[in-house]
């Protein structure tokens, strides 16, 4: 089915909300502004009534699937349950309706929250200080690399221009390195362990050592595997004067068990919208705080929250070595309130139980699928693992995409597909800790059924989904002839 665009609805003169009445003297616009500065044509926004707005966006919501709708095993995205109390707390007038430039004396609760959250995240990651400014994981990556750059420059090692990144890394890692004006050098994965190929690393460091600014790693990595050699990696990098950057996308596996700081990392980012349960909102907002060891503290962006002897809080400017601001205002505050609420809800034992349960659930699903699906690295995994459709592709031409689409027919979202890039036909599965055993069993059951269908009725899988509001969409057409906005006269087409 098709829902018309809001622009195709309504009629001239209709409106939903009224503006408040004018309670000051009426003056003509051109008495207030030179006429050349005035808009000549009104913006052609929709003209719709309130009931039309409500039904339209209600219908759109009904055409969308969230964690509240069902299982969402999207690997690397940590689609855990988003507690409703978090939303309520972020919406309190004292948090939701305050201005970023209010005097500190009028926002003591807000600064306190930021101050305490910073300390909690430092403890969880084993870091010394944390900045809550970055807006998302990739923004955190870039910020972290800027800190590393400023650090090297401060030591007159500004010539270090290489960043090492494993071949299974998140795509944002090399992109962030490039944006920080670094050259990327790829580190191979050891095909046995799934971890960093130590020999390859050694070779690279021998060759590039003095030019190496940093290595960017996740641990557990995107294969869901914990790299047991992490201390050796850290030793080697530090030996050549490089820094270790920890991509926190997979931090849901380590809380209370191990800490990036204890593994030897110098910088770490968090994805609060993953690890700390803040909702993904269809693609954002997120928050990507950065934690650092003490040698990097002077370079942090400002302002930073401070607590004083009398129990009051204030914002303090960063020091002279600070890299400067990475965004306006003080970080994604609404997201921070949610993360704070989550951490206080769980406490130390709760957070460890989160990670343990995430690991258990992932291994349970892996175990359940292993008979029918090839597992990329059949080892103990942590919070996620990578299955593949290699067997299904070979035997019946059924791809990872086909399997993903078929899952949708069963009221489940699909795993991440074709990532990491080093695994063909990858199905990257992260159940998270908030799923019940019954849901995991149901997913395993459905995946087995799809494997069976692949053998018996492969067309059903190849032409899936069948029960969704719309079938597979023509991605090639979208890219070849991009249509990125509605224009008057354009109408949606209906079956």
């Amino acid at each position, binding site marked *: 089915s098709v829902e018309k665009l809001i622009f195709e609805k309504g009629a001239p003169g209709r409106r*939903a909300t009224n*503006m408040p009445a004018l309670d*000051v003297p009426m003056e003509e616009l051109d008495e207030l502004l030179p006429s050349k*500065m005035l808009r*000549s044509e009104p*913006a*052609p*926004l929709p003209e719709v009534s*309130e009931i039309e707005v409500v039904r339209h*966006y209600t219908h759109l*919501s*009904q*055409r*969308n*699937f969230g964690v509240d709708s069902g299982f969402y095993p*999207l690997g690397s995205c940590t689609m855990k349950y988003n507690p409703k109390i978090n939303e309520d707390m*972020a*919406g309190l007038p*004292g*948090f939701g*309706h305050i201005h*970023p430039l*209010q005097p500190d004396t*009028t926002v003591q609760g807000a600064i306190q*929250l930021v101050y305490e959250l910073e300390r909690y995240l430092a403890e969880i990651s*084993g870091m010394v200080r944390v900045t809550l400014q970055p*807006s998302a*994981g990739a923004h955190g990556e870039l910020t972290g690399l800027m800190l590393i750059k400023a650090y090297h420059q401060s030591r007159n090692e500004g010539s270090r221009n290489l960043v090492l990144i494993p071949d299974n890394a998140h*795509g*944002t890692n090399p992109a*962030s*390195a490039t*944006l920080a004006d670094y050259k990327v050098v790829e580190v191979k994965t050891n095909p046995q362990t799934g971890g960093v190929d130590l020999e390859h690393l050694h070779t690279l460091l021998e060759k590039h050592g003095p030019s190496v600014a940093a290595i960017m790693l996740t641990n557990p990595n995107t294969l869901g595997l914990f790299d*047991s050699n*992490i201390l050796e990696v850290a030793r080697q990098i530090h030996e050549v004067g490089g820094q270790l950057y920890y991509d926190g996308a997979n931090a849901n596996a380590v809380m209370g068990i191990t800490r990036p700081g204890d593994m030897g990392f110098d910088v770490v980012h968090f994805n609060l919208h993953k690890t700390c349960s803040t909702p993904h909102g269809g*693609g*954002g907002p997120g928050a990507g705080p950065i934690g650092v060891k003490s040698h990097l503290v002077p370079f942090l962006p400002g302002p930073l929250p401070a607590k004083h002897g009398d129990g009051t809080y204030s914002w303090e400017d960063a020091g002279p070595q600070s*890299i400067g*601001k990475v965004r306006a205002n*003080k970080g994604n505050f609404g997201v921070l309130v949610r993360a704070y609420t989550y*951490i206080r809800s*769980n406490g130390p034992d709760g957070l460890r139980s*989160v990670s343990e349960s995430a*690991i258990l659930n992932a291994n*349970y699903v892996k*175990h359940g699928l292993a008979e029918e699906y090839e597992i990329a690295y059949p080892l*103990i995994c942590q919070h996620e693992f990578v299955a593949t459709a290699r067997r299904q592709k070979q035997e019946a031409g059924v791809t990872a995409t086909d399997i993903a689409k078929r899952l949708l027919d069963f009221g489940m979202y699909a795993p991440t597909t074709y*990532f990491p890039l080093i695994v063909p036909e990858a199905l990257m599965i992260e159940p998270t*800790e*908030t799923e*019940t055993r019954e849901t995991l069993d149901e997913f395993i059951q459905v995946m087995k059924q799809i494997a069976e269908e692949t053998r018996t009725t492969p067309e059903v899988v190849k032409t899936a989904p069948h029960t969704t*509001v*719309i*079938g597979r*969409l023509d*991605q090639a057409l979208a890219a070849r002839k*991009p*249509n*990125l906005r509605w224009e008057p006269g354009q109408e949606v*087409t209906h079956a």
Partner: protein
Amino acid sequence: MSYVPNTPEEQQEMLASMGLSSIEDLLAPVPEDVRLGHPLDLPPALAEPDLRRLVSRMAARNKSLDTTISFLGAGTYDHAIPSVVPHLQRRSEFVTSYTPYQPEVSQGILQATYEFQTMVCQITGLDIANASLYDGATAMVEAVFIALGPGGRGEVVISQGVDPQYRRVLQTYAFARGFTIKEVATENGVTSLEELDAAVTPSTAAVIIQQPNFLGCVEDAHAIEAIAHKGKGIFITTITEPASLGVLASPGEYGADIAVGELMSFGNAMSYGAPALGFMAAKQKFMRLLPGRLVGQTVEEGGKKQTGYVLTLQTREQHIRRERATSNICTNQSLLAIGATIYMAAIGKQGFRELGELCLRKAHYAFRQITAVPGFEPVFQSPFFDEFVVRSPIPASRLERHLAQADIIGGYSLAESYPELENCILFCVTETRTREEIDTLVAALKEVQA
């Protein structure tokens, strides 16, 4: 309060079904020497009612704009949020979904984002727009990256009328990427055309202004466009107060190449300034250079050919352009974009214009009332939209304390960012301030003199 559903007994059964006896068996890959030997040093878990009490108390230590009269703007604007917006935006199908990798079950987010892109084009008068960016400041940086192209070096000219925070962010990125920034001073509250003309050279990659600018003044955008386009550089305009577009000429009308800015104030909670909602609109020719996510319209494969929406020209993390990237943007601000979309649909064509007119008229009323108070002098003669600068006869910090006693948060003190504007206050008056509240402010200012 834990959100792990399975009980310890169930977890034990799950382990047993795999032939394991303890969760420890699954932690084997984590070497002992990186193990955390003790519980995290965090406050203990709280049950929901206790948690609610704790966090509510913290919130109550903040002075919400619901219980005070505020004339703060300076990049963050207080616009009324129609009730329908949060009711719809907060539907869990939107809130708890992720980036629409599976379009067949994500048409809601996708179509709403396509509508957002269209509305951003409609208000800016430009051809295309993306699905949102972190905030106005980083959106401005992303526009600069487009201007600089791969490699990211070159020279950028920016007016000192641009939000000082935005300029500081640009400096940070310039440090990282290695490009050069030339700042152009203001004169009578607007960008000095003379200085600008001198600053723009054939090697200028971009010229950036803000409209209305940080001092509240409306730039002569047409004149600036002519200067900006002297060379090969592109003309970027930054808009932090989108309500201005209801009455002011649009970037499309005055020939900007790219418009960036902040749409948070359209339908989203102010929330101490963030999460914000950066936007970017541009001329058609920049289509394949736009950072972040883009939603495109397409049709079903095969026979039915129904209209649908997909992420397109994708730079999602799996196949982001990696080393060849000109942006590392992955997460966008979808949920806020949906809020802004619903907001713009709700106020509509007529309301959008009225919004601009209300802000304009109320601000001018306030300006006249305030500057009629002896000692409070206007600073600039340039036209303004809903913010204006007044010089206080007493130190700004004293004025702040005085107004606080009347439960008023006055404007923003400019001296920190503009040392030459000592004791100058930037007042903002949007449609949410009533005449009564303005008069209350004026009465309080009169007491200063007494």
